[in-house]
């Protein structure tokens, strides 16, 4: 099929465009942009399992870091508690204001002093423990005085020496001055 010659004005413009096109060289910028778009597209269209794996690795690393941070926190807390001797140590040796006081003696009575190994429970109370049992928290010697006038009192709470066997405990023992 034969086409008609274009309009002379249009023919002139086409020739000028052909000349410009012949003179123009490929742009390096354009190549870089195309390369980038192709790479981006290939990343977006990567298989789903690979993406999930990468995400899982990321979460695992974050969890490990969090666990490490918690562990370090617990370790520092335990060190601080040991340095301070625990909650009872602050009160160790302090006089209690409980009634009746130990030296109230209206009548002659007979008293016995014990030393009892104990640990703090989750409830915040002291609990007597078997000296041979394994333990994770600080152990204490509790000085207990019982009298046959019906009074039972805790006289003193002292942290046990953790470097000794059983923390230095051999069970309930008489108090030795």
């Amino acid at each position: 099929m034969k086409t008609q010659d274009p309009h002379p004005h249009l023919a002139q413009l086409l020739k000028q465009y052909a000349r410009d096109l012949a003179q123009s060289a490929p742009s390096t910028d354009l190549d870089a942009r195309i390369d980038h778009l192709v790479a981006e597209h290939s990343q977006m269209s990567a298989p789903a399992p690979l993406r999930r794996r990468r995400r899982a690795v990321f979460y695992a690393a974050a969890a490990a870091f969090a666990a490490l941070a918690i562990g370090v926190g617990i370790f520092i807390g335990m060190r601080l508690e040991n340095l301070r001797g625990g909650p009872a140590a602050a009160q160790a040796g302090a006089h209690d204001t409980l009634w009746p006081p130990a030296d109230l003696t209206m009548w002659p009575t007979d008293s016995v002093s014990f030393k009892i190994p104990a640990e703090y429970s989750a409830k915040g109370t002291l609990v007597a423990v078997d000296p041979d049992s394994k333990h994770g928290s600080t152990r204490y010697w509790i000085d207990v005085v019982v009298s046959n006038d019906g009074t039972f009192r805790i006289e003193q709470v002292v942290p046990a020496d953790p470097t000794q066997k059983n923390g230095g405990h051999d069970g309930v023992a008489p108090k030795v001055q």
Partner: protein
Amino acid sequence: MASRPRFSSLLVLFVALAARAHADDATAVPECPASPAAEQPTPNNVRLVTGSPYSALGISQTVTTLPDGHRIVRRNTIRQWRDSDGRTRSEFSLSSIGGTRPLELNTTVTVIDDPEVRERYLLQPANKVAVTMPIVPCRVNAGLEPDLSVGPPRPAGLPMNVTAPVKLGERKVNGETAAGSRVEATIPAGAIGNEQPINMSAEQWYGKDLQVVVEATYRDPRTGETRYKLSDIHRTEPDARLFRVPDNYTKQPAVAPARKRR
């Protein structure tokens, strides 16, 4: 020549008397401090009461009522024996001890005091050990009245005012004639952060023949009310085996426990 044997006899007699005097001195039982509050602490002093054997059960119950109405009941018992020579055996059944730092125990501790050999034995049934420690027997002046001459008890370093003991007369407690006395104490407002004064009281009834407290009541609004009563009282001589360490036990001297080095 007849004077030589006579001199020897005198010498032997003198030596024998000196030895006896020394032995008497060694076994002499001193008087207990009149008022422990006024004396230095003497933790190894053990009161010697002879010629008054008995066995009994002492029950101490403390009831603490919390602000929301809940009640905490703590109950500890002392089963006690004493023979005519003054040996004693005490079995402490301890469940818990209240206070600012409550202690949960659930254990039984048996203690034998033998003033004759001047030793205390604490029995550890789990490992068949009798932990021993020396005691110093002392006699209490057998006056059957409370010693009011020393004035009010002086709680060392405690921010409280204590009244002088008041005599409550005599009454029968479980068949025993008992003399009563009572003291009251107040922690002044502000002494321990309290807005109002805290009023407390202690009342004790002392068995005149038994020479032990047979009934007591202690009131402290912070810890509640403790009632103690001696029951199941028998005035017969207890079985002598109760005051001996069982044959299958090993005696071990008590040692000062290892405490945390600072």
